[in-house]
């Protein structure tokens, strides 16, 4: 089974930079930074910014009109409105042309789904979707593991496990994006790809073959109404 963990959260990266992690945890973050270029870049740039300024007197002063404009936007925004600004525009650019973002709610009383194994079983906290890209059918499974968290599993449908590998021997790759940021990526094999500790929010799962994207599944995990 291939396990891919998402990147460390921002607070962990701050603790790493400010030297508050245990030696063991620090070594784990070192290993992640060796492999993850986006986290490494984030940490390097933050270190540069920290070296250049303190949190008080060296800061560039924001112009009053800018602060007023931001205040105005915060006042007028409410919980139902989408964020205006580059992030929402980026998300719209990313999802433009894709199938509609599917909003999923993970809750304790989820409808029963057919699980792997024999016959139907009543499942709790699990949502399952089947998507076909380039004649390969994938099962995408989301299971709630805690408050605002889920685990994501991706694997080829049993009947198509022989077709996931192309005639040239190149394997399929699946990547999980949040906004513009690739969180984690793994090679699809006969064993499930597992992404743990997925926070609730909007994601895009991208499938790549021959270095080209063959399909995407956009979804948004929401909190249970319970």
């Amino acid at each position, binding site marked *: 089974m291939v396990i891919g963990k998402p990147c460390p*959260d*921002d*607070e962990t*990266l*701050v*603790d790493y*930079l*400010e*030297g*508050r*992690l245990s030696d063991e945890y*620090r*070594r784990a973050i*070192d*290993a992640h*930074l*060796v492999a993850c270029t*986006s986290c*490494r*870049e*984030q*940490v*390097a*740039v*933050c*270190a*540069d*910014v*920290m*070296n*250049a*300024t303190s*949190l008080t007197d060296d*800061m*560039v*002063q*924001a112009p*009053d009109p*800018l*602060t007023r*404009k*931001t*205040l105005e*936007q*915060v*006042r007028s*925004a409410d*919980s139902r*409105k*989408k*964020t*205006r*600004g*580059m*992030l929402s525009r*980026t998300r719209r*650019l990313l999802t433009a042309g894709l199938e509609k973002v599917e909003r999923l709610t993970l809750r304790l009383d989820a409808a029963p789904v057919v699980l792997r194994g024999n016959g139907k079983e009543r499942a709790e906290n699990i949502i399952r979707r089947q998507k076909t890209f380039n004649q390969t059918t994938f099962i995408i499974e989301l299971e709630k593991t805690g408050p605002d968290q889920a685990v994501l599993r991706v694997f080829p449908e049993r009947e198509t496990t022989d077709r996931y590998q192309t005639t040239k021997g190149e394997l399929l790759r699946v990547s999980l994006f949040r906004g*513009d*940021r690739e969180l984690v990526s793994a090679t699809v094999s006969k064993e499930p790809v597992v992404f743990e500790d997925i*926070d609730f929010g909007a994601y895009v799962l991208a499938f790549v073959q021959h270095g080209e994207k063959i399909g995407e599944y956009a979804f948004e995990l929401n909190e249970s109404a319970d």
Partner: protein
Amino acid sequence: MSFKNMADAPTEHTLLAGCLAGDRNQQEAFVCHYTNLVFSTIHGVLRSKAACLSQMDIEDLHSTVFLRLMERRCRKLRQYQGRNGCSLASWIRMITVRLVLDHLRSSKDALARPERIEPLTDHFEIPSEGPSPLARLTAREQQAFVETGLHALSNRDQLMIRLHFFEGCSLSQVARILNLTDANVHSVKHRAVQRLKEAVARQAAEMK
């Protein structure tokens, strides 16, 4: 009202608690309190990456940081835990760095899309001004050699080499990232380079 001279600047805890409770006044005080930090960080990232953005983009990013923190009943802000003594200001700075980097990456991707793909035959006889194909192949092979040597090093040594030599980070940046003093970082760098040389030499010997 001067945003620079707020009397009785509120504590982080007061601001955070007020925002999470939906207190509009505290949310506005939050913006006023951190407006300089966010603006300064945006400029810091642009300086670090030697990037340029229009005034409108900078203003958009400034607003986006706060909107992202406040939207959906401060959903993002609720993720801050302050464990291990991480300050709210440091956390906001890290979030701002990530947002600006994400924006720069998306802008680069947008610019990288070719407007038009021209057939190769139309430019068959234009000479290249860059390195020769042999030089490029040699450089790629050398790079592959170094990469293999790198994988034989510890994670700390790899980070030192990648950050300083591949990604152009200053030694003071690397010192902060690896939690080293300015004095130590030079010797750590020297040892990492020595180990890389030994690893590459071993690799070369094995190939003979």
